[in-house]
């Protein structure tokens, strides 16, 4: 998920609080934070269902916007030539060449936004989009 922080929340130790007080595991995949400006953190969060739920309630109470990751991967499917260069680097299996049709299939739910496909695609059809949009 992408956490979008308003400028006032930048100084708050959000990840520390999530880990220590809500007992959830945080894996930071990417960060785009500047003092005095809205910032973004791309994280993976896991833990007991109840803890995760309370952690999300806490984030919302801090005016932090939570966006599921799938909204932030843009793939220009219509221009794809089904070469397979992206599937080659996709650990999570979100990008796979179908063994029968040999077409590239993108399953956004499996995407962990590691960004390797962005550089691997020879036609630059992938875009990772952080932020409010």
């Amino acid at each position, binding site marked *: 998920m992408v956490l979008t922080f308003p400028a006032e929340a930048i100084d708050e130790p959000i990840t520390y609080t999530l880990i220590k007080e809500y007992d959830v595991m945080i894996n930071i995949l990417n960060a785009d934070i500047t003092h005095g400006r809205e910032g973004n953190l791309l994280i993976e969060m896991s833990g007991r269902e109840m803890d995760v739920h309370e952690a999300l309630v806490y984030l919302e109470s801090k005016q932090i916007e939570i966006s599921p990751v799938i909204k932030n991967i843009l793939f220009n499917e219509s221009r794809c030539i089904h070469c*397979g260069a992206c*599937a080659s680097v996709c650990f999570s299996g979100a990008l796979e060449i179908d063994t029968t049709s*040999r077409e590239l299939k993108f399953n956004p739910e499996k995407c962990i936004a590691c960004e390797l496909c962005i*550089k691997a695609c*020879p*036609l630059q059809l992938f875009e990772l989009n952080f932020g409010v949009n």
Partner: protein
Amino acid sequence: MVLTAEEVSEMGKTHSAREIARKVDVVTTGTFSPMCSSGVFINVGHADPPIRIEKATLNGVPVFTGLAAVDLYIGATENHPENPAYGGAHVIEELIKGIDVELIAHAKGTDCYPRKDIHTTINRSNINEMIMFNPRNAYQNYPVAVNSSKKIMYTYMGSLLPKLGNANYCTSGELSPLLNDPRLRTIGVGTRIFLGGTTGYISWHGTQFLTDTGTNEHGVPVSNAATLAVIGNAKAMSSDFIKAAYFEKYGVSIFIGIGIPIPVLDEEMASRVMIRNDQITACIEDYGDPDKPVIGRITYAELQTGEISLNQKKIRTASLSSFYKARIIADLLKKEVAEGRFLLSEPVEKFPHSKELNTLDIR
């Protein structure tokens, strides 16, 4: 009867070579892969007053001008000096699409070509010739690439993940033109082909053409062997079959779509076109080692499953060659041949029977 190479490979499971030789007249093949050694000759016509172009760029990409006054060669892999991800391949694709391209050219000027500078736009309709000429295309097999080093490598075989993280290959396997006629009996200078969406021709053997590279038990080369130099009218091509590409931290390249019909002359030819992915082997080269040693061999059937076993490790595989598009090309060509619109003929000249490769030594 006209079939694609994939269909005849399937047919080969239940029919003998003799039966196939009797029933099948032509087999069509196809490939759609990055082929770096490609480019387009253009003639932009004469301005008034005329210029004998000495230095030129198209959309900022340098083009070769050492060919008389207004003949230029756009090399696919030449990149824009300030943008590594934009190059000759992109200019070629834009010209094929009919998009305007900016021409800036300079010259010292001569008595008969007094103009020293020109700044204008050109497109597919207002230039004279637009001839694709690719010195090296359609490799007959190519080694699979892996990377045993600790760092990711960015190569023309794509991104190679460290510690044998992935294995990339780049042919269309049983659909591949030169793997269906491995001894090049029916393919040579003058062979009519599908090139970039239109009809083209094989103009010469390609650069780095190599025989004697070692074959497997089915008589098919296991490493990069023969290549083709191809020619065609780029004005009639389609960007569905010519695509500019950029490989991160490697450079600009271009995907070229090629299809070649193979006449099933006799039983020997039939046994060749029946070749299946499980009968075509490729060497595996380790790009992580500076010597690029061969560390194994694998069949295309195994590669296409998406995972292979190497040194007791399971490795994900992927192709850089689009099998999906190769099928489309073979199918299109099948229709053209079957309906009598695409004719086959004997090559005007056969390819070299035996050829070795030189290396570039420091002399």
